[in-house]
């Protein structure tokens, strides 16, 4: 890899926020996902890292003894809460905290008696941390080669979006600074992946609805233990991101003590390009979606940097985009006006309805932004969406749409109205007008947000977390929080991680995926099949049957890989066949009692006829004393019938004859011998098909 790895980090500095390369590649052409080579991403300065959240398979939640994994749709009661930003340990209000407070959400939690208690609703202090969860976390940390802490300190990580009723997530650092082998033969990757840290934390609520100033959460998932594994930003292109996600999933699954299924594992992915900064895309629950998301984000950053370059070019500076801190913006700055009279009467239904609801319609002038709001930042998405997203999340308007702009001239207002508004705002060449409509207090927040976002456009890429959409695009979620939102949990004592516990975990440690791969390679498998087998659900079955190194191991791995998915697809089996049932087959092939070509068919038979005894199923594949005589009869019979094919090419005749004779002797007679006998009987000797 051409990118130099940074020296090992042990954690004293916060993770870097800016891409180490400050030179955006502005002239690089826009490309859709799938059109670029790894080399292109290197040119762009693409960097990515993962944060994988994995629910642990424990009986209880992390800090109370409610059952973990009980999901219900009914609820017995609701609780209403608000969140206020508070002070971090180091004395500063956190950026996210302030933003969330602006949103002033009414947060409703739905409670179901069987899945939550008074702990989750923040009416009872935490109970002792779940020992099972701590143990599993240590096990994963060991698999990831992390340095274990001696003492867990439970911290509070603030979340004011309401997803946790306390307003913070309880979380504890378990291990730091590890590396794992990162081998992906098909991508030509063979290096190490650096793991920054692993923490143990409680899961948040499930969001049910978010409309205007009301947000509703279900609390059943709240408090379930999960680990968060964070990699360094070592992933150099979208496919590597996906491969790393899969690798980390396999590591945690190796323990057999993690939850599977929808929502049990969710990744946040960090992305930046040269000149950009770390952007976190939250809650991707499928590895398949990762590559497109990170590609699109790379392009969003590149295009925001283009917008910045153009604004700089036009001489726009932040002074032109400031609004006094207090008062209604349209009363304190000439850049914003009450546009009600300019737009009335309005044919455009959203604005007409807003006027009827007696809401505000506000016009905003962004000097020097003309034409840029229509600039494409994501597939099918323009720069204007950056403003709309901010307003949606922070001002919380109920009715949509709530924004239009003058880069789309024939939309929303008619030309006369645009002209009236432009007069009212004293618009000049190169400016753009934005119109928003919503209740007064929301409109005030919205207008301030427009100017905040416009100023950020001059800096480039705002630090934020983004939510993933299924089409690969993302939307603003919240301002990226800093380390300041973390402070010690005064309700829980430190938890010692004793040497005895660590030793005990080490002794029972499962095999890592890479150890498994090496073991399969040692059995004679090629790297790619070895990796596929190590990741396959039948790897355990393979191990239990322990085929002999060399041809038997290769053959058996291959047979499992082709036949098991086939049977699963056909619905013939919803579970793997037992090792006991397959053992006689593997042993017979190893000893030569059954020839290897028969393995695939014999396996099918063992699966298709589960009630027949193994002996009976395998009997037809075992050589018998009369095989030679039977073969001669079959060959003679085929030769006789082959006369009907006279005139066909010799190759075709032989293929037909093999098809007639060979299946009956599968496992019993060497196919090359059958072939020779047929060639002789068909008097094809000397033709090209010999051998």
């Amino acid at each position, binding site marked *: 890899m051409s990118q130099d790895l940074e020296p090992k980090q042990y954690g004293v500095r916060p993770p870097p926020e800016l891409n180490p390369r400050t030179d955006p590649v502005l002239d690089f052409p826009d490309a859709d996902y799938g059109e670029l080579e790894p080399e292109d991403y290197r040119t762009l300065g693409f960097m990515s890292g993962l944060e994988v959240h994995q629910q642990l398979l424990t009986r209880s939640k992390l800090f109370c003894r409610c059952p973990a994994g009980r999901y219900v749709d009914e609820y*017995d009661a609701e609780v209403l*809460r608000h969140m206020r930003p*508070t*002070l971090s340990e180091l004395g500063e209000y956190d950026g996210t905290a302030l933003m969330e407070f602006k949103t002033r959400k009414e947060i409703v939690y739905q409670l179901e008696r069987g899945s939550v208690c008074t702990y989750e609703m923040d*009416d*009872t202090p935490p109970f002792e941390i779940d020992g099972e969860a701590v143990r599993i976390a240590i096990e994963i940390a060991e698999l990831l080669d992390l340095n274990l802490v*001696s003492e867990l300190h439970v911290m509070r990580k603030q979340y004011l979006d309401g997803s946790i009723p306390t307003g*913070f997530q309880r979380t504890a650092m378990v291990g730091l*600074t590890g590396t794992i082998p990162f081998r992906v033969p098909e991508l030509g990757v063979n290096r190490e992946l650096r793991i920054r840290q692993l923490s143990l934390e409680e899961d948040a609520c499930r969001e049910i609805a978010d409309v205007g100033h009301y947000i509703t959460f279900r609390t059943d998932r709240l408090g379930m233990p999960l680990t968060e594994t964070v990699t360094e930003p070592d992933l150099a292109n979208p496919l590597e991101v996906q491969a790393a996600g899969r690798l980390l999933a396999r590591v945690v699954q190796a323990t057999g003590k993690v939850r599977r299924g929808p929502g049990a594992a969710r990744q946040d992915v960090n992305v930046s390009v040269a000149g950009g900064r770390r952007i976190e895309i939250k809650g991707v629950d499928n590895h398949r979606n990762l590559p497109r998301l990170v590609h699109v984000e790379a392009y969003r950053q590149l295009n925001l940097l283009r917008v910045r370059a153009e604004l700089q070019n036009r001489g726009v500076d932040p002074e032109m985009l400031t609004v006094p801190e207090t008062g209604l913006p349209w009363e304190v700055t000439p850049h914003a006006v009450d546009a009600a009279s300019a737009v009335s009467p309005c044919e455009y239904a959203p604005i007409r309805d807003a006027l009827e609801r007696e809401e505000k319609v506000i016009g905003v002038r962004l000097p020097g932004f003309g034409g840029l709001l229509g600039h494409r930042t994501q597939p099918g998405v323009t720069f204007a969406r950056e403003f709309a997203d901010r307003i949606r999340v922070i001002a919380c308007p109920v009715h949509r749409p709530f924004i239009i702009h003058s880069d789309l001239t024939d939309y929303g207002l008619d030309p006369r109205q645009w002209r009236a508004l432009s007069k009212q705002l004293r618009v000049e060449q190169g400016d753009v007008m934005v119109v928003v409509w919503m209740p007064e207090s929301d409109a005030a927040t919205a207008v301030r947000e427009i100017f905040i976002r416009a100023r950020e456009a001059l800096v480039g890429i705002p630090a934020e977390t983004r939510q993933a959409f299924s089409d690969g695009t993302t939307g603003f979620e919240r301002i990226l929080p800093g380390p300041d939102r*973390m402070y010690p949990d005064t309700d829980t004592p430190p938890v010692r991680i004793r040497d005895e516990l660590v030793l005990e975990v080490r002794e029972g440690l499962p095999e890592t995926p890479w150890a498994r791969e090496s073991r399969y390679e040692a059995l004679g498998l090629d790297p790619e099949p070895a990796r596929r087998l190590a990741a396959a659900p039948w790897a355990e079955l393979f191990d239990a049957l322990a085929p002999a190194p060399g041809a038997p191991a290769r053959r058996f791995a291959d047979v499992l890989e082709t036949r098991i998915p086939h049977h699963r697809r056909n619905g013939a089996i919803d579970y793997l066949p037992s090792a006991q049932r397959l053992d006689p087959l593997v042993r017979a092939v190893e000893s030569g009692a059954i020839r290897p070509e028969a393995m695939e068919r014999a396996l099918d038979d063992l699966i298709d006829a589960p009630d027949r005894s193994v002996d009976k199923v395998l009997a037809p594949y075992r050589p018998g004393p009369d095989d030679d005589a039977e073969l001669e009869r079959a060959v003679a019979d085929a030769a006789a019938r082959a006369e009907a094919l006279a005139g066909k090419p010799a190759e075709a005749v032989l293929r037909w004859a093999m098809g007639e004779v060979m299946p009956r002797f599968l496992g019993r007679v060497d196919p090359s011998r059958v072939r020779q006998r047929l060639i002789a009987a068909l008097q094809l000797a000397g033709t090209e098909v010999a051998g």
Partner: protein
Amino acid sequence: MTEATHDLYKGYRGPCLEVMKRFGITVWCEVRAETTRGTFEGLLLPRSETSDDLHLVLKLGSGYNIGVRHDTVRSLEKIGYREAHYQIPEKEFPTDPVKPSVKLFGTGGTIASRLDYRTGAVIPAFSPGELYGSVPELAEICNLETEKLFGVFSENMGPEQYLRLAEEVGGAIREGYDGIVIGHGTDTMHHTAAALSFMVQRPPVPIVMVGSQRSSDRPSSDAARNLINACSTAASGPIAEVMVCMFGPTSDRYNLLHRGTRVRKMHSSYRSTFRTLGDIPLAMVQDGEITPLKHGYRPRRDDREVTVQAAFEERVTIAYYYPGMHPDMIDALVEKGYKGIVIAGTGLGHVNRRIYPALERAHAAGVHMYMTLQTLWGFVQMHVYETGREILQLGVVPLANMLPEVAYIKLGWALGVHPDEPDAVRELMTATIAGEMTEREPHDGYLIFQGGVPEVQEFLEKIWR
């Protein structure tokens, strides 16, 4: 250890202290620790004094803290130094001549607080500037002045503090404040509320006690809302009584104003822990708007007249009766010089026969004895059963539906006011002076719902949130 060295190694002792000294490291150093468990880098934080002496605490760049055990440390290298100080942004509290003025007394507790690194504890923070920095809404309600009287947690509030507090409240009323707020820890808030109810008589303005069940360093805290509603009540509320202002439901919806002599903390940790027992609350407060629920409260007056009777006899106790109680429990109290015993009896106000002789001896020794109820709800009724009548004969005086803790406070106060006049004490105890006994119990004065019952379920889903 001198104070200065103590500061350099805040909270560390034993083997950890040795390790720090060996490598020339103090708290607030950024260190690289080579250990048998790998290399760690972080800011060395002070250690809580109640934690063990085996681990160093590092704050990582990510904000996490971790513990590193002393005997895993091979070396500590100083790579920087960064001392952190926790501060609430202090802004000057704006005053507005047309707004009512409120005096906020601090007693400790968690109404406004900050974190302390060393102990991990929540430390009260209090000046108007600090309060304005964290609850700016207060400036829209009143002109606020604050005075910290004590820095004690709720459990350390006692007679000494009651007396001082009563005098200070009386003084503030006479100075002309439009209302008084008292920040208080929640555990014994109802004891202090009762004490003030008896000691500060016929106040012309609201005296509002307030606290929080979730400390104000957390986003979900009830502190700000409680404080806002308490200040509104004090500034412009119509009720001139001693009240407790805390959450009604656990949801962030409204506060209740409870009469100081009928209120009790009923859950160790719920936000809605304070309940009025045997009656309905005085009022609801939501977003500063006060809706009275109960008629017959004492209304706010324009005068500044108030009677403060600050006195307390500490040799008073509550005897919580249980079926196997031996008479020597009572004898021991008498022997130790207790002057008053509030009995929390079973049922309608009963104790077993076995302790009758001891009660008789106590009565003969001049000890004041009063009967209250463990059931908390309902009236003492000692005429229904023979046991009750017998106990009356032994000199135990029934106190109707006065709550046991209130009776304890009242008896301490009455004995303090009339140390040598048993008849006056008895007269005071059996007369209602601050709503501590009611003549009747309304049908909705006792409401303890049972979950799971369909009609309650329906109520919870539709209304109670």
